[in-house]
């Protein structure tokens, strides 16, 4: 196993080739906020929350997707990054309709947690108040597009772990949204196995169990990592 040595916030670090900067930073106890990343799913670098500065590179790089390289000098917590992260969170909040007070995920929401971490006490950007629907056609689960941050965790878990590929991303720009099947009501998509994995990994209140009311969604996305590891060891199939 070849090893790369680099520096993260001044700590000298040695990591196996192929390790991501995010994994390396977490290994040495340097926190980097993430949203779209989830252990057990392929990385997509969709949310841009984990951006880091690498000396010598003018571009900020997503830690969840960037592999370690020999001699890299990485900074994860500069004022510029702090401002970027707060802006990313503000954009996520203003782009959708997040009324936490009535949300199923209130108190157990990764977006909320990140907002607290990056110190977003208000938004400096104007709210867009888009008009977006809620899909309750599935017998067990619901999808509220108002709360979706397009992290695509649901798309990936359904495709990569459940193998059903119910979800996809439709349209572009401000019209971009998650679609079920060929843009059908979720309940009309036969491929859905009702497994609920998408609900479990969704970081917000966008996907939820219909029996849950305000603040009752207590998903545990980290369980996916355990499932994927167990599968790799042949211990569990579902």
């Amino acid at each position, binding site marked *: 196993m070849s090893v790369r040595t680099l520096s993260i916030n001044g700590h000298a670090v040695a990591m196996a080739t192929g390790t991501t900067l995010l994994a390396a930073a977490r290994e040495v106890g340097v926190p980097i906020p993430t949203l779209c990343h989830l252990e057990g799913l392929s990385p997509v670098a969709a949310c841009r929350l984990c951006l880091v500065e690498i000396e010598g590179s003018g571009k900020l790089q997503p830690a969840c997707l960037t592999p370690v390289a020999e001699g890299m000098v990485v900074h994860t917590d500069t004022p510029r990054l702090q401002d970027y992260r707060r802006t990313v969170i503000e954009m996520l909040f203003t782009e959708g309709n997040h009324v936490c*007070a*009535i949300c199923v995920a209130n108190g157990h929401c990764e977006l909320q947690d990140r907002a607290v971490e990056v110190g977003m006490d208000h938004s400096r950007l104007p709210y867009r108040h888009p008009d977006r*629907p*809620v899909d*309750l*056609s599935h*017998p067990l689960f*619901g999808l*509220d597009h108002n709360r979706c941050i397009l992290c695509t965790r649901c798309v990936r878990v359904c495709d990569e772990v459940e193998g059903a590929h119910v979800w996809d991303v439709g349209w572009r720009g401000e019209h971009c949204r998650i679609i079920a099947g060929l843009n059908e009501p979720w*309940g009309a998509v036969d491929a859905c196995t009702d497994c609920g994995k998408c609900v479990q990994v969704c970081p917000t209140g966008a996907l939820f169990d*219909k*029996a*849950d*009311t*305000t*603040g*009752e969604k207590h998903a545990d996305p980290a369980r996916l990592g355990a499932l994927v590891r167990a599968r790799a060891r042949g211990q569990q199939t579902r």
Partner: protein
Amino acid sequence: MARTILIDPVTRIEGHAKITIQLNEAGAVEGARFHVVEYRGFEAFCEGRPFTEMAAITARICGICPVSHLLAAAKTGDRILAVTIPPVAEKLRRLLNLAQITQSHALSFFHLSSPDFLLGWDSDPAKRNIFGLIAADPELARGGIRLRQFGQDLIERLGGRKIHAAWAVPGGVRTPLDPTDRDAIRAQLPQAFATTLAALQRFKGLLDGPLATEASTFGCFPSLFMGLVGADGRWEHYDGQLRLIDPDGTVLAEALPQQRISEALAEAVEPWTYLKFPYFKPLGPEAGSYRVGPLARLNVCERIGTERADAELLELRERGGRVVTSSFHYHLARLIEILAALEAIELLLNDPEICATHVRAHAGVNAFEAVGVSEAPRGTLFHHYRVDANGLIEAVNLIIATGQNNRAMNRTVTQIARQWITPGATEISEGLLNRVEAGIRCFDPCLSCSTHAAGQMPLHVQLIGPNGEMLQERWRQ
């Protein structure tokens, strides 16, 4: 200083009670109007949302009675699921409503109204508040504050939070009552009873003495009364039949069709206020207008069903007749209802089932339209939803207590204006302001001004001449 709080876009409530007094050619009072700028766009906000969110959305309409909206929303939800909720869930919801009635009535009586009674209408307005009361009668004031805390504590122990506890859900409640919490509440009951009984004694003494005129004249007019009644016509606050009586006590409607309430009730609209005027359809907007709330509930019931409250109810009827028509007696009715609530809380806490743990029924959408009715502290509250096959809200209508008392509040203000403005007067006197404020406060209306705990209600009164010209205007912040 008064503040106007705008909560945008969910609710928009004006912090002022605006009153216009219309004079005729002879300079006498022609009429008076109580104007409200109320919630706007609220119904539209709910459209397209899952009905399961309605409890949380509507609980945020009002910071004073969120519990009432929670219960009405949960009851409407039960009907959409078409389930019978577990028996203990109903008992726990009742407990929640009783706690709400206790804390809300305590706030109205002790914090907002009693400074007027105990310190006098014409006492220094700067001291005519709960702090002035603490100085003048520390024991009563502290008792009142603790009584409100008792109600809030019970709500918190049930729902996890003092306000906005989204604990009642379609199908039941979220969590059972913990025996430790039950015992802690039980331990506070003796003091709550003592405070209530002392306040009753004190207030009845005032009614027989210095408040005798107010008691017999304030907003005293015949009207219909509406409220829920339980089995055998007993006092009710959560479920039961909707009864409507006339001022002689004749039952006009024994069981209004709750699920088809729009067949029985209509809402009139006036251009000068956002608050609608619900009325009993068969009698039309004027004769069909009715009062709701504590006094209405005591008027429509045969009896309360618990010993101490029934004794007080009897005394109230000796004082004001079988149907008490003076709005001033809303205050006494509140105290009697606190007593009734405490007795009912005691009974429920002694129920061996109260800590049972099966508290929620689960089901999908089985009905597309439903009405949920419950008694808020201020009166009967209706939630009416229509949903699509998946449970997304298509239409919402809420009939709130303050709306149903709208006509009565207008009549009360008119009556007070007639009494306090001598023909030819062009002045709005301090005495008039005080009485108008007190008149409105009888109904404990659910406006932000009624929560203005520091004594004075922010008022805006205009005196309008026969040709529509404004003669005088007074603001009191």
